[in-house]
């Protein structure tokens, strides 16, 4: 997917003025609330009209102020999932899902109804009224409805924000699966860096109606480390849990991690904050933390008053820890040095 955007729109006390060009399938639009994320989405979808500018999607001009060209939203083939599911209340689940499919020309129909239903696991809901669905089910139906419209670009406008944490990360795999299976590129809009890390390859960083930079979620998380108490979020995809004395032993590359918040699902996505990793210069004889990893320092980076440490933990294991400047000197942390990283079993948070 290739998207070129130059757009300007003046509101009462807000001036929206963006210019960017992106290529890729998983693009994030990041920024605090009120920075113009939803404005951007509305303009790309054609739901509101800019003062001037240009929108070109995959070589086709959707809007050009100078030529007075403004393709209607129903002809743009751009799908959208909002924060709230916004299902049609008068239609059944099936009626909602097929609304876009029915209006899609046969030439553009590439996605089969049954496949989407299977990926989203909503077959059993088919004849229900939408009022009788749970929050997560509703959002899955909303995703299915947008996908079945066979869009060439999906606009995901904070689709996870209205869901509580456990539900949020339940939806993530569905969202990722459906976009990957049917190769639908998307713009993922959110103010959550964690969601950006999980959902995107590239990120447009928006602030006050402008695009500050084209970057990655990784770079943003590193930059933010110094500002936020939470630190850097390590995301670990772990497999094959085995129960051990009331906690779980997960495989991480060729080593094992002991995790308190585990369960029996074969795979899980865990969050581990850089602030929860303690580094030792040599092997501590006895320690209460259940995980002790021998690591090599790849490099260090500075974020305000904190130092981030990139660790190679053997296998494909890679972690970012965070220490103070004094600690760096005392432990002699430099590129190539060996350290031990200790992590408590309770420090991991299961996301998916």
């Amino acid at each position, binding site marked *: 997917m290739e998207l070129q955007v130059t757009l300007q729109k003046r509101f009462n006390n807000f001036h929206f003025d963006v210019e960017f060009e992106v290529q890729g399938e998983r693009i994030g639009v990041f920024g605090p609330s009120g920075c113009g994320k939803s404005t951007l989405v509305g303009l790309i*979808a054609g*739901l509101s009209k800019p003062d001037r500018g240009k929108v070109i999607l995959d070589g086709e001009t959707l809007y050009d102020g100078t030529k007075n060209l403004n393709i*209607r*939203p*129903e*002809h*743009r*083939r*751009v*799908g*959208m999932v*909002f924060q*709230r599911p*916004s299902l*049609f*209340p*008068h239609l059944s689940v099936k009626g909602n899902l097929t*609304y*876009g499919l029915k*209006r*899609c020309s046969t030439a553009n129909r590439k996605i089969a109804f049954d496949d989407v239903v299977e990926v989203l696991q909503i077959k059993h809901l088919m004849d229900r*009224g939408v*009022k009788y669905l749970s929050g997560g089910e509703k959002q899955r139906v909303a995703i299915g*409805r*947008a996908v079945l*419209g066979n*869009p060439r670009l999906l606009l995901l406008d904070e689709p996870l924000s209205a869901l509580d944490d456990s539900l949020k990360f339940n939806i993530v795999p569905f969202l990722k699966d459906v976009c990957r299976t049917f190769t639908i590129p998307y713009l993922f809009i959110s103010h959550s860096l964690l969601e950006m890390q999980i959902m995107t390859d590239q990120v447009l960083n928006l602030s006050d109606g402008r695009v500050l930079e084209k970057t990655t979620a990784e770079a943003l998380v590193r930059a933010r480390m110094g500002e936020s108490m939470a630190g850097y979020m390590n995301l670990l995809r772990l497999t094959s849990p085995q129960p051990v004395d009331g906690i779980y032993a997960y495989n991480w590359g060729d080593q094992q991690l002991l995790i308190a918040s585990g369960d029996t699902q074969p795979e899980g996505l865990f969050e581990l904050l850089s602030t929860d990793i303690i580094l030792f210069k040599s092997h501590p004889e006895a320690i209460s933390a259940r995980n002790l990893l021998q690591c090599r320092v790849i490099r260090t980076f500075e974020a305000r008053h904190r130092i981030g440490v990139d660790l190679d933990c053997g296998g494909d294991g890679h972690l970012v820890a965070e220490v103070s400047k004094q600690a760096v000197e005392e432990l002699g942390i430099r590129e190539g040095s060996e350290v031990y990283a200790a992590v408590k079993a309770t420090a991991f948070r299961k996301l998916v």
Partner: protein
Amino acid sequence: MLGFTPADYSAILLSVKVATTATLLSLPFAFAVAYVMTYRRFRGMVALDVAVNLPLTLPPVVIGYLLLILLGREGLIGRHVLQPLGIQLIFTWKAAVIATAVVGFPLMVRPMRTAMEAIDERLIHVSRLLGAGWFDTIITVILPVSVRGIIAGSVLMFARGLGEFGATVIVAGNIPGVTQTIPLAIYEYASSPRGDVMALSLCAISIAISVVVLVFHEWLARRMVRRD
């Protein structure tokens, strides 16, 4: 019921016929006006708003008189549109329909508009992005989602239509068997000696029809709540 003359029976039937016809005739117009007032921004919106709601505050007699001037033989519409087409409206039941429709119009528009204003804008956005044009969206989203307002508006106009007197008596007259509706018949009985019993009987019929309409509305509303 006892003692009803054929003219009384035809007054009862005519009342129902006029109110029903006026309601059905107004439905598409009222829906269009409610839609335009909810979703379109244009110059003269205030003027339209005032024009639509004017019958609510004007005395019905005034409306009747204005209609008479407009539709009568010398009137703007009467002379240039109706006469060339050979249509005679004044002093027929059709004039009663028009009078009823005009008087009840704001009552029909208001609940429709309230219902449309309550529709989540994103439903409309979603439908557009899924490939539905604006007319498609009106028929498949706005209409079904605002159906309760449409029913409420229709019931209000029908009920108001059953009681229409002032405008009707001027444009349609009070001709027994032709343009005499229940309220006009009651008026005639009430102003004639020994007409009390007949007037009361027609009142009873009037109450019965109103009760049936309200019960029907309640039933429909409940059924929709259940369906949701």
